[in-house]
């Protein structure tokens, strides 16, 4: 059997019985807990049912308490393996979990006002040139400036923290960290934006666990 790891949690009771609690301690005397989903060794991580099962567990765990999301793909065969691979991160994770215990993430995905065409591999002589062009296309998407200003005015004041993120060539995202009790207020503000900008395609989703705000690459 192996464990597909879903997230990092402050307390064991945040995990049980929704997932298998796996200790990760590092140099932290109290330690943290990872949530694992037990699956047979021969079940590939790309298995559709496993993906859905993991997504379902993720949602249930977030309802219980805020946790740090581990990107899908980390699987381990024993508690010892989990502990070894996560030990370097434990101190940083504890600080995040304690700081953001009452917060969740929301995501506002906005269609780019003028989406860049996605590069075609055949137009480039080398893979490096192609990847560079792909990256340029994915970082140049911008939202309608009027809509973006309205978002800054309506949504960002509700946030503890927020970050604009480029993810692909056709959209831009705002990651919003906010207290759980303000999620509904944010949704209402999102509905108001929909009324005010009926022609701007956007999607407000969440709540999500700590994803962008726990990712060292986004700091």
């Amino acid at each position, binding site marked *: 059997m192996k464990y597909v790891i879903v997230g990092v949690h402050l307390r064991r009771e945040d995990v049980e019985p929704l997932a298998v609690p796996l200790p990760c301690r590092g140099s932290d005397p109290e330690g943290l807990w990872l949530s694992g989903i037990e699956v047979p060794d021969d079940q590939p*991580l790309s298995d559709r049912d496993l993906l859905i099962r993991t997504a379902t567990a993720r949602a249930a765990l977030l309802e219980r308490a805020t946790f740090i*999301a581990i990107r*899908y793909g980390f*699987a381990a065969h024993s508690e010892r393996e989990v502990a070894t691979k996560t030990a370097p991160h434990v101190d940083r994770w504890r600080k995040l979990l304690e700081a953001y215990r009452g917060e969740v993430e929301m995501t506002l995905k906005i269609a780019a006002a003028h989406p860049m065409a996605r590069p075609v591999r055949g137009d480039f002589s080398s893979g490096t040139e192609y990847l560079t062009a792909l990256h340029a296309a994915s970082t140049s998407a911008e939202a309608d400036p009027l809509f973006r200003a309205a978002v800054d005015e309506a949504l960002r004041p509700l946030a503890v923290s927020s970050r604009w993120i480029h993810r692909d060539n056709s959209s831009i995202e705002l990651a919003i960290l906010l207290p759980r009790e303000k999620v509904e207020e944010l949704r209402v503000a999102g509905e108001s934006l929909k009324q005010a900008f009926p022609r701007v395609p956007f*999607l407000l989703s969440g709540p*999500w666990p700590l*994803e962008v705000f726990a990712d060292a*690459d986004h700091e």
Partner: protein
Amino acid sequence: MTMPEPTDDLSLLETLDHLLDRGVVISGEAVISIGDVDLLYLGLNIVLANVDAIIRTANRR
């Protein structure tokens, strides 16, 4: 880019998008899959959700 009204399918799509493309990456773990087979297991700092994710990660290093 079209943005349909929220539905259960859309909710699932968003959830899978977050599962595959967001969150903390544990160093040394990466699985590339096609269909139902995990093809490669790489000692990298990235999980390959899609090529855009690879590029973003590479450019931040």
